[in-house]
């Protein structure tokens, strides 16, 4: 069982728990199990990581919020005596936008818009998790066309995010030819998103029921995805033959399975530590899905999981487009003002589990709690980076595929 969130309701503390694909909300008084990530989740908006370290010659190297190394606004307090990293404490507050407060008392479509703006590179995953929570609250299920279109959106999002992460890793390792080609594929992936949804970040597409007639360029999107897969396969094979590259990633920022489970991290980071967990296996319309795992838990393993997922996701996009074209549109509709109650929904985003708890009243969002993969990812980074040197920062950080927008909301 994993703790994904701590929320307060009527001055009572409630825990959001996940066991495989089952989500539950329990009062803290009813739970005997102790969760190692409880304090981290309680303080997720203030700081993430470890405490300050004091000692002879130890100083705080404050990295951010304005640096050339990390494009996102946030601060890393790195405690070191000049060589080994002793502790990392992260302040995500520079990116705080209070989106959960903004979502409250809004109608459904405005709330979907806010959820997409938590973090643009996970926009589709956020809107999916939110809409699935609304479906639970209203006790209905979207139709098959909608669910299959969502799969395409989620997998397209995974492709461009993974390409971005691997291009960052190759750039950090001065593999400039590889990095340049991957950046080219990243741009191609964004253009594919635009062909598919008219938005480079797959926004304004997701809904409770999606009309497949809105997607006019499915064939072109499928062809572009096929090209991306072919080019990436060639680059990936080539990259694994480059010992300079592999040497920089191998045994860097190791996160073992026990530590990963304690932190509550999900997604490629957990799978790279040898844990066979991917909630897509429980979804009805994911055909021929397989979980990709590696066991070393280092930067290289995380890159390999992402690389193999790119190829798998490309196949899934092409397959789903083929199926959708043959399907009849079901003109299902839901009366939004009729949605009342609470529900939880999740989505396996490119970097782990996005979860939404929503409480709806007559189609208006009363309350919302968002659990994002970057919160756990930042803790995993802070813990795995200890003992390494600052030169490893870019590989270590980029390999988790996390960002402050997702973490701070």
């Amino acid at each position, binding site marked *: 069982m994993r703790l994904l969130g701590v929320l307060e309701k009527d001055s009572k503390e409630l825990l959001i728990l996940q066991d495989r694909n089952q989500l539950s909300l329990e009062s803290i008084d009813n739970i005997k199990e102790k969760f190692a990530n409880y304090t981290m989740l309680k303080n997720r908006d203030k700081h993430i990581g470890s405490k300050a370290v004091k000692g002879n010659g130890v100083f705080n190297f404050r990295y951010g*919020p*304005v640096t*050339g190394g990390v*494009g*996102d*606004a946030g601060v890393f307090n790195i405690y070191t005596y000049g060589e080994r990293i002793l502790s990392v404490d992260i302040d995500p*507050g*520079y*990116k*705080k*936008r*209070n*989106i959960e407060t*903004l979502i409250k008392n809004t109608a459904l479509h405005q709330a979907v818009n806010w959820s997409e*703006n*938590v*973090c*643009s*590179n996970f926009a589709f995953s956020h809107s999916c998790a939110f809409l699935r929570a609304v479906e639970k609250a209203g006790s209905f299920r979207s139709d098959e066309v909608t669910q299959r279109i969502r799969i395409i959106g989620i997998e397209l999002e995974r492709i461009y995010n993974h390409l*971005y992460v691997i291009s960052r890793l190759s750039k950090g390792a001065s*593999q400039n*030819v*590889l990095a*340049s*080609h991957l*950046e*080219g594929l*990243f*741009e191609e992936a*964004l253009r594919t998103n635009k062909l598919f949804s008219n938005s*480079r*970040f797959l926004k304004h597409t997701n809904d409770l029921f999606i009309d497949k007639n809105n997607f006019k360029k499915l064939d072109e999107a499928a062809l572009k995805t096929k090209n991306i897969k072919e080019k990436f396969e060639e680059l990936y094979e*080539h990259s694994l*033959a*480059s010992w300079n590259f592999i040497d920089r990633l191998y045994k860097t920022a190791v996160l073992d399975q026990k530590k990963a489970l304690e932190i509550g991290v999900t997604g490629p980071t957990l799978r790279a530590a040898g844990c066979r967990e991917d909630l897509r296996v429980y979804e009805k319309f994911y055909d021929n899905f397989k979980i990709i795992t590696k066991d070393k838990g280092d930067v290289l393993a995380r890159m390999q999981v992402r690389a193999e997922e790119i190829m798998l996701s490309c196949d899934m996009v092409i397959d789903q487009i083929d199926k959708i074209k043959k399907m009849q549109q079901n003109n299902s509709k839901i009366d939004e003002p009729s949605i009342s109650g609470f529900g939880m929904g999740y989505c396996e985003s490119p970097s782990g589990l996005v979860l939404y708890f929503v409480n709806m009243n007559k189609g208006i969002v009363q309350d919302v709690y968002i659990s994002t993969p970057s919160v756990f990812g930042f803790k995993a980074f802070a813990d795995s980076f200890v003992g390494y040197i600052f030169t490893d920062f870019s590989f270590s950080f980029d390999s988790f595929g996390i*960002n402050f*927008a*997702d973490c701070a909301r």
Partner: protein
Amino acid sequence: MKSWALYGITRKLTEPFKKLEENTGKMDKIFRRSLNIYPIDVGNNGDLNFEMAALAAPQYNIHRFGIFFADSPRHADVLLVLGRCSEKMVGPLKETVNQLPKPFNIIIVEDGTDFGISARDLSLPNVIAYYDKKLEAGEILSVLLNITGDKK
């Protein structure tokens, strides 16, 4: 298998680029074909950070226009302010502006959301272009070519 160096020159990824005319101010002519830009995220939703990453893609090949990313604001000719400012980023943004060498200019591109403070309301000096909507990588390149008066 070819070495990376040979592999690199067997693929031509750069695309022809036709800039769109934008209503921007103009920088001094000395920056034409030599412009160092420093992007600063002041609290955007991630769109613009990823568009900046896309701008580095070989399809745009910004180096052919003499445009480069600076590693520090102290080496930059243009500060690209990305997004609307979160409360905690107001101070770091103003300090970054103080670090820019003269002459410098500022471009503000917001992400089309309502949260935060518009950087336009912070009385920043030398603002040469302002957009209250999100721009894509190609559009950002157009703006940069417009402010330098590049004829391409």
